[in-house]
Each structure stands twice: as C-alpha cells, then as structure tokens.
C-alpha cells in the first residue's frame, strides 16, 4: 500500500457505500482525480464483495417487469408517437393469449392502483399540510389581534402617562389630597388637577364596592356637585381615574367620592368615602 494512498483507506469504503459527505467527499474526489490505482482497485474489489453479499437477498421479481421491459425495448426503436405507442401497446395486450391478458390486466391494475394509492396518500398528506397551514395562519391572526389589543392598551397607557407628565409640568396644576370619611376613615386619595387639561385621581384603602355599586368622583364648583367619573378598586382597595376637564369650570372647590349605583348618577345619593378640604 502506498503512503500517498493510505490516508484514503477509510474514504474509499465510505465512497463505495455512497456515505461520504462534505469535506470527506471533496478530499476523496480530488485524490481520485489525481489518479490512484490502489483506490480504483479497492473500489472494484469492494463492489465485487458487496455484489456477492447482495446475493443473499436474491428474489424472483414479478413476471410483469420482464414483460414490460421487453415490450419497452421492442418498441423503443420504432419511435412511434405517444398515442400510437399507447394504442399499439393496448392492441398487443388485447391480442395476447387469455393468460397473458389476465397477467397484463392485473399488472395494469396493480401498477396504477398502487400509483393512485400513492397519489391519494400524497394528496391526503398535502391536504393535512394545508389544513395545518390554515390553522397556523388563523393562529397567527389571533396572535396578531391579541398583539393589536395589547398595543392599543399600551398606547392608551402611554398617552395617559404623557398626559400625566404634561399635567405635572403645568404651573397651574395642583395636587389635592382627599381624606377618608366615616365609612372608611383610613381611606386616602390624591388628585392631580388642571382645570384646562383635566386630572388624575388615585385612591387607596377603599373597600371593594358591593355588587351593583361603583365609586363616583364629584367636583363641587359654585356649591354644585358635578359628576367627574366612575371607578372601582382592586382587592387591595386601590383605584385610579383619569378625569376629563369640566366644561365651564375654572375652579373646583371640593373633590369628593361617594358610593353609587353601577351606572352612576347625576347627583350624589350614597355614602361619601373621600373628600378634599375646600380650596
């Protein structure tokens, strides 16, 4: 064995088994292109050895294959048109002896039934793939909808924060404290208020409203309570409310919070939980 060939021993085996890939395949092809008698001899001998081994599998093929092969070879030189070829073939089958006709018919049936079965199976596979794609698209649409909702929410939150920042930067904005009253003395509230831009109320330690009830914020101006929005609180008693500017109201004297029916009312009817000192 030559020194130049030796490193390629294992590659020869991989090549004969058609199992080389990537760099190995390139290295072997380059080496072989340079001409290596030992490689060529090994390739030939390995193929002989595998052919002998493959004899263990010997099995008689279906008779129709021989018939179809010889038919194909017999017709090939004539170079008839495809239609002529098919007609000629059909005619020859029709003219054949009874047994041959049965064999041919069963061959046709077996061959095309198998192909049809295969096509049907492929079509079923494609249908399944399509259904999966449709499902995936609808899933993506759903995700997109969810993301759009989240985006809308985030935009609203960002807008609220921007408004809050703008409010805080305005010299006319004031911070008003609301104290807890008898039903809940420990409750607290703060409202950032700007007559032109509106404001933001935050409340803490309020009891969660009973079913069918809600907290309502009132802005008392000129001695008259004006409804300024509805809100509820979480399990910890915290809640907040963005308050729109009140048309025609330059100065709010008192902010107050009462417990009211869920749809809200135009004048306070329930117990007052929070109230600011008179400005």
């Amino acid at each position: 064995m030559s020194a130049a060939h030796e490193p390629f021993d294992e590659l020869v085996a991989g090549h004969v088994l058609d199992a080389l890939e990537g760099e190995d395949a390139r290295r072997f092809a380059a080496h072989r292109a340079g001409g290596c008698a030992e490689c060529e001899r090994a390739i030939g001998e390995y193929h002989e050895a595998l052919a002998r081994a493959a004899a263990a599998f010997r099995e008689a093929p279906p008779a129709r294959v021989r018939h179809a092969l010889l038919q194909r070879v017999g017709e090939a030189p004539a170079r008839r048109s495809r239609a002529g070829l098919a007609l000629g073939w059909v005619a020859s089958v029709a003219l054949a002896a009874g047994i041959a006709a049965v064999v041919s018919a069963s061959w046709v049936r077996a061959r095309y039934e198998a192909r049809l079965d295969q096509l049907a199976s492929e079509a079923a596979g494609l249908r399944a793939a399509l259904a999966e794609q449709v499902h995936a698209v609808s899933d993506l649409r759903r995700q997109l909808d969810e993301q759009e909702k989240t985006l809308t929410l985030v935009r609203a939150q960002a807008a609220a924060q921007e408004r809050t920042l703008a409010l805080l930067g305005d010299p006319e904005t004031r911070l008003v404290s609301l104290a807890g009253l008898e039903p809940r003395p420990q409750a607290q509230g703060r409202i950032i208020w700007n007559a032109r831009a509106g404001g933001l109320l935050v409340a803490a330690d309020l009891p969660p409203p009973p079913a069918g009830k809600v907290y309502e914020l009132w802005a008392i101006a000129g001695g008259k309570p004006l409804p300024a929005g509805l809100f509820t609180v979480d399990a910890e008693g915290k809640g907040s409310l963005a308050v729109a500017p009140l048309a025609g109201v330059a100065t709010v004297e008192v902010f107050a919070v009462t417990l009211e029916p869920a749809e809200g009312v135009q004048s306070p009817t329930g117990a007052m939980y929070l109230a600011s000192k008179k400005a």
Partner: protein
Amino acid sequence: MVGPGVDLIRRMAGGDREALAAFYDLYAPLAFGLLRRMLRDVEEAAEVLQEVFWELWRAAGEYDPRRGSPEAWVTVRARSRGIDRVRSVRRREEMLVAPLSETAAAVPEAMANPGALVEEREMVRGFLRELPAEQREAIALAYLQGMTQSQISAHLGLPLGTVKTRMRLGLERLRGMAGSRT
C-alpha cells in the same frame, strides 16, 4: 472476475433483445432482491428494477469486463437507482406533515403478512453474516438505507471515526473473503 453474463452483455451492446431477456433472467433476481431490501415496497422495487435493466440495456456498449463482473455491474446500478428512490421517498415524507418512520413504514407489511418481519430479519441476518455485528450494521445502514456516515454516527450514537473504521474493516474483511474463494 469474468461472469457468465459477459457474452450476453456483448450481444446486448449489439442490439440483441434475446440476449437482454436471458441476461434479465440471470440477474434480475439479484437486483430485485437488493431493491426489495432497500425499498421494502414491491411496487416501488419492481418499477426501479425495470429502469435499472433499461439503463443496462442502453449502457451495454460501455461495459468493460476488466473493470468488474456483470454481478457488480448490475448491483452497482441497482443500488444507485435504489438509493435515489430511497432518498427521494425520504425527502417526500419529510415534506409532508406526518412522515413515516422506517419502523412505522414496516408495520403495515407486518400486519398484512405476520411472517414478513420474521422473514425479513432472517434475510438481513443472512446478509453479511460473515461480519461482526457492528460492522454489518454500519455497512447495512449505508448500503440498504442510504444513510451517510454522519447520519449513521448520529443514528447509532457513535463517534464518526468509529463508523468510518467499522465500514472500512467490514469491507476489507468481505474483500478478503471474496479473494480467498477465487
């Protein structure tokens, strides 16, 4: 190295269809058995078999007995076309949603014919039976299932170098045995 079919191949090269028929009768069982082991499906194997012999008929003029026996000429061509089909079926199955694994693909055949798996095991045992099991396994996965060395390495959980060595040792051993018989 000269096989009984050399004269038939010469006649085939001259366009002798009777020679093709005789050559087919002599070598088709060898090619078909190999294709059946590779493709499992009789219809697929039969279809590829016809293509193989059609190609051999057309390539008869290129056959050089100094380069190999008719048996090797037939099996190399059959195995090559078989691998093309195996890989194409595998690609098709990979593209579909639920590819059939090798094992799953074997199940219907076993259900249709309960003896099929037993028979198959016996057949594979006969193939390369002269080799140690680990060499036989590496060669069979490449030769019959078209797996590359790195695929076999991943499949068996073995280092790539071990797979390469097993293939080489197995083929050298087979070659040595063939040489001692001739």
